[in-house]
């Protein structure tokens, strides 16, 4: 019986502090161990907190003396994580410090809980070993992803860059957490137009590719569907290398949409006549799922955004029946 091993939560979660690092230089508190990657706007290091020995992830962003100031990506990530970090499936922001580097430039340090891998590495590891991810593991990971997305959406936030690289994992516990909210935005304040220059191309929803000026939570659900397929096959489902190629890739596999399957598609700004492909069965595109899995995948990759299954509803889908039994609530 597959169940999710929830880590014991601390009795009282420490609230992230926002200190100036007054007195001690911010970096004097941490020992950098190694660079482990780059986020949307900064380098990421594995580091040790000297006072406690705790291992953390340190995201460093330099604020050069130019005229950009604090990047909106950093501003949004910190403020949205302050609101969302209480969820077990969103990476925890532990601290925020302002420091100065050797050249006298201002540095912002974001201190996160450390997770030892991400879904991209996890999938790649299985691919290079020519082995599939066990079906039970796929289900556990997908359940956690849907829970995290449901929480984020419930707070009125779009992630807008869900992809395997931004989903952190603990190899031992199979815990999965949503990270890198640099391209996220709140959708609680109405604005005239959202940008299209977000979402890594392979996981980008068709309504964005077709130039919709308003989009919402369904764009993240499409990404979840792409990730689901990739977990099953170890290969990205729609690996396009330009916006047009991305769109054609989707249409070739899922069929070219029309007014019947997607009312209003013809009015989207980037719509024009496309070759008329017929849909391929999901079971041929993504071999290895059971009937419930295909049903859920189909609902995640629904063309019409309004019909795409919300994350909260996805959690109730029969595919997750055996995982839900192990869930506390």
């Amino acid at each position: 019986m597959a169940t999710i091993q929830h880590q014991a939560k601390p009795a009282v979660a420490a609230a992230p502090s926002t200190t100036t690092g007054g007195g001690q230089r911010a970096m004097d508190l941490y020992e950098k161990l190694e660079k482990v990657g780059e986020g949307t706007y900064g380098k990421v290091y594995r580091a040790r907190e000297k006072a406690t020995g705790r291992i953390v992830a340190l995201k460093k962003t330099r604020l050069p003396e130019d005229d950009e100031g604090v990047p909106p990506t950093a501003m949004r990530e910190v403020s949205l994580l302050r609101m969302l970090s209480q969820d077990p499936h969103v990476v925890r922001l532990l601290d925020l410090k302002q420091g100065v580097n050797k050249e006298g430039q201002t540095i912002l340090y974001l201190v996160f809980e450390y997770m030892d891998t991400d879904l991209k590495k996890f999938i790649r590891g299985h691919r290079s070993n020519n082995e599939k991810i066990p079906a039970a593991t796929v289900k556990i990971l997908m359940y956690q992803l849907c829970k995290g997305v449901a929480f984020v959406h419930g707070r009125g936030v779009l992630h807008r860059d869900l992809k395997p690289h931004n989903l952190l994992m603990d190899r031992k516990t199979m815990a999965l957490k949503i990270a890198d909210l640099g391209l996220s935005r709140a959708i609680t304040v109405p604005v005239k137009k959202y940008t299209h220059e977000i979402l890594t191309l392979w996981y980008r929803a068709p309504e964005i590719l077709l130039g919709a000026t308003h989009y919402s939570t369904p764009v993240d659900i499409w990404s979840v569907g792409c990730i689901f397929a990739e977990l099953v096959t170890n290969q990205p489902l729609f690996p396009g290398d330009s916006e047009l190629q991305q769109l054609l890739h989707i249409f070739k596999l899922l069929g070219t949409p029309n007014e019947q399957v997607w009312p209003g598609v013809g009015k989207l700004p980037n719509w024009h006549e496309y070759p008329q492909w017929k849909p391929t069965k999901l079971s041929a595109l993504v071999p290895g799922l059971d009937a419930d899995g295909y049903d859920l995948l189909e609902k995640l990759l629904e063309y019409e955004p309004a019909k795409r299954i919300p994350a909260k509803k996805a959690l109730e889908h029969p595919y997750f029946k055996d995982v839900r039994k192990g869930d506390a609530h």
Partner: protein
Amino acid sequence: MATSELPSESDAFAFPCGDDGTTSPALSPPVVISVLASILERHIALNERAMAAASGLDQSAPGDKDDDDDSDPAAAAARKRARAFDGGTVLDMSLHAFLERFSRYAHVSPQVYVVAYAYLDRLRRGAGVRVVRANAQRLLTTAILVASKFVEDRNYRNSYFAAVGGLAAAELSALELDFLFLMQFRLNVCAGVFRSYCRHLEREVSHGGWYRVDRRLGRPLVCAGEARAQQRQAAAV
């Protein structure tokens, strides 16, 4: 466990000020600017009077601790950040004309003005920073800049905002950081809170400026989830 009290999906994603992604006609740019200028003028007048009264009391209480008490480094750091907004130039035009510059030259949307106002409200409640003549130029420019960066996906450069606000680019970038730390980076305005601020502005319009926004905003405006999170943090301390 108790059922979730998170805002329902329809609540979270409702457009409280009109369905087309913009504020309602009552809150068009000129109206929002006029209303905010009027409200802020009253706040400044009230705050100046309160400061005058407080300084009067200070003189008659020689035993009071010095303002720069260093017993709490975090509090001292916050005071230093707040003082960054004081001094220097004072506005040489009306608040209305000043606020209008951001709409005209930086194409700031009505929603950004509302969010900037929400930030000033939070600063007052949290860090105790009040708008006064000495800080209005820097505080308003910075609040509008930060609100614009948080709310809009496309923005002008800090140097452009600085020029519109009559500040040096380097000064504005430093103030931006100070503002963010004073706000503790709490920039999100949830749907319900945004709706409430819009309603207050609309009432100001319908009452022709006689409406006393201050009274109705007696209770801090926080959304349910954030309120519970704050309670947990308070319990944790």
